[in-house]
């Protein structure tokens, strides 16, 4: 096979000189290599590396300067971390780590460089074509008035009484962002979908649902915004994706049918599973997030999956896992990519049906909401029931003979917007927390249906106000004089941890966090 593509990101400085020598000497550089000259390998983010695969590359290689010779100091170290993280992520995705390489060369190492390029080419040739095929991106067009009008009437946004209750409850407005859901609804109704402020603001909403809770006309603002995002993105609108759109790319990549993911390889062997079980555990994307953030936030949200499985085992439930589990699609749906959300949804539901599963259990609030609520709402019926692990735990613990070890800490709790929104599981976290034995449990100033969000949703619109919101939230947590912040969603851990990394406020904001499943798994015992 010679029909393959390799993208070579080549640093301007050291290795470019070596590359030029090869060109000057007329050396045979393999045709499959397309070179992109860049100012520093440290600036090639994980999202750019991944985007190359998303756009159809079979191999990607990043060539920079040797450690110590980087013109900007830290470029090589950053490039190495970015490549390592991306390699592990594409490995987990089933693309094969070996498709991404990183190397460094001195200006006079042209022979070594040629050798390297030939070897890399051979390696990609032996791996064969990438299972990913390019997904066309939407073309830029202006959004039709009809499609907006349809959304306005579907969500009955005309019912808005202009009362402003939403804006007075919106945490973004309260933190000082010039942002008003009331005004946004009205601008959209008035047909100003193309105005710069609307175009910006629709991506800022956290879709946390506080406004919906307060709205006397029951305008479901978050879902309204979600659908507006969809038409805007479909017409090429900029989705203001965080992290260069890495996560959206990753999730879109999961729509490739030929993918054989390896998302369970990390699971400890002593977790009891049963491939024939009619109960399936749906893990979610936490393992990918942990790799992405490991050098920065050092989050460990994958623990939530392991702890959940251990809790199921504790109650003698040995679930099946789902080899080709794909992202549930939550973040694509909420950042405007309904087309690819639907692909993921269909693939997941088909595979679950093929396995003959009767019940799906998940510990992720986003997966729960998406599977239980958004799949059927988007015309994908389920032949199985979806249970959040809190429901199951409450039921099993409620049977009795269960005790909890003492927790030597004062605790407080960060609500998950996705659970608060739905009627059924909303009060479950608190029921479970009240069973625990901490020194003390104290609520934050805003809690329950008035809780403040962790600052971001669906990896979109993250800005300085998101940070301000997180700072406010973490200060509220500290005001309870607690030592441990219990969370209910992996994303809350990620986004709140991000604020704790602030070089100036970090120390003040820092607080130990644990997911509710984790603290239950660590302390539960038979009476």
């Amino acid at each position, binding site marked *: 096979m010679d029909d393959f593509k390799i993208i070579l990101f080549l640093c301007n400085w050291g290795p470019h000189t070596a590359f030029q020598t090869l060109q000057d000497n007329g050396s045979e550089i393999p045709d499959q290599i397309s070179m992109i000259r860049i100012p520093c390998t440290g600036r090639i983010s994980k999202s750019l590396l991944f985007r190359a695969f998303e756009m159809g590359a079979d191999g990607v290689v990043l060539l920079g300067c040797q450690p110590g010779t980087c013109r900007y100091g830290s470029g090589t170290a950053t490039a190495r971390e970015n490549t390592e993280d991306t390699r592990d992520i594409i490995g987990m995705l089933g693309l094969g780590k070996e498709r991404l390489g990183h190397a460094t060369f001195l200006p006079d190492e042209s022979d070594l460089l040629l050798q390297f390029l030939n070897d890399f080419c051979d390696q990609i040739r032996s791996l064969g074509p990438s299972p990913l095929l390019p997904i066309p991106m939407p073309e830029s067009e202006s959004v039709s008035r009809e499609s907006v009008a349809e959304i306005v009437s579907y969500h009955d946004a005309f019912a808005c009484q202009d009362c402003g209750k939403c804006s007075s409850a919106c945490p973004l407005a309260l933190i000082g962002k010039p942002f008003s859901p009331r005004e946004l609804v009205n601008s959209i109704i008035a047909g100003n979908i193309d105005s710069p402020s609307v175009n910006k603001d629709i991506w800022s909403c956290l879709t946390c649902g506080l406004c919906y809770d307060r709205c006397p006309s029951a305008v479901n603002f978050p879902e309204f915004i979600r659908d507006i995002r969809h038409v805007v993105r479909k017409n090429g609108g900029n989705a203001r994706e965080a992290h260069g759109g890495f996560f959206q790319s990753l999730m879109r990549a999961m729509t490739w049918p030929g993918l054989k993911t390896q998302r369970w390889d990390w699971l400890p062997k002593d977790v009891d599973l049963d491939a024939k079980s009619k109960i399936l555990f749906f893990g979610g994307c936490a393992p990918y997030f942990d790799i992405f953030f490991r050098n920065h936030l050092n989050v460990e949200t994958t623990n939530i999956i392991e702890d959940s499985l*251990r809790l199921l085992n*504790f109650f003698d439930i040995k679930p099946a896992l789902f080899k080709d589990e794909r992202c549930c699609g939550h973040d694509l749906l909420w950042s405007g990519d309904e087309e690819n959300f639907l692909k993921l949804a269909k693939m997941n539901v088909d595979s679950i049906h093929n396995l003959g599963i009767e019940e799906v259990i998940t510990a992720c609030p986003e997966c729960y909401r998406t599977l239980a609520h958004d799949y059927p709402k988007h015309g994908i019926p389920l032949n199985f029931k979806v249970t959040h692990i809190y429901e199951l735990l409450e039921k099993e613990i409620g049977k*009795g*003979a*269960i005790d909890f070890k003492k927790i030597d800490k004062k605790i407080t709790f960060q609500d998950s917007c996705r659970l608060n929104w739905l009627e059924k599981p909303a009060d479950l976290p608190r029921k479970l927390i009240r069973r625990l034995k901490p020194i003390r449990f104290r609520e934050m100033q805003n809690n329950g249906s008035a809780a403040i969000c962790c600052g971001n949703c669906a990896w979109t619109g993250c800005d300085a106000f998101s940070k301000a919101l997180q700072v406010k939230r973490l200060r509220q947590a500290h005001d309870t004089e607690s030592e441990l912040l219990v969370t209910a969603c992996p994303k809350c851990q990620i986004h709140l941890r991000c604020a704790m990394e602030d070089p100036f406020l970090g120390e003040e904001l820092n607080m130990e966090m644990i997911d509710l499943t984790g603290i239950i798994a660590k302390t*539960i015992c*038979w*009476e």
Partner: protein
Amino acid sequence: MTDSQNHQQGKKEIIITGFGGQGIVLAGIILGKAAAIGEHMESTLVQSYGPESRGGSCNAQVVISREMIHYPYVSHPDILVCMSQSGYDKLIDQIKEKGTLIIDQDLVRPGRGLTCDFFSIPATGMAEALGRVMIANIIMLGFLTAVTNVISMDAAQKSVLESVPKGTEKLNTTAFQKGHDYGLATLKGRQKKAAGQAGAMS
């Protein structure tokens, strides 16, 4: 496996003790009926109220056997169910050496150094959570059915439904089920602990 399960075929002598108003005698009736009608065994019931019957101590003595029962009084029970401290204090010394003690942990504080098989359940607390303290006796019966196997789940449940006032069947079924679940969970917990798996992470 509990002691009583080992001797399922033999005669079982049971005392349920508590105070007036808890439905102790009703619990005895349900138990006896379940054995007689559901399991086709012989059973007898003797109820004894103290002189101070209202709020005072009372007990139900139940004998269940495959053979004809010649003497219905129980002085040394195989199974002692205590729903009051005074009942416990009075009868604890009379339980058979390999007997089974069951207490409502919300009402009884057991002494130290018990040698018999021992189970406890917060029946009164659970009844309160269901909105009717009165239903603690049915919770207790569900628990007893699960941990002792003197009568089957089916027989016990039928007997409960036949004996409780009309209109309260649903509440009583729930109560029985709660007690039964608690019993199964207790047995499972014992098994797990014996296997060295007391927690989720070990």
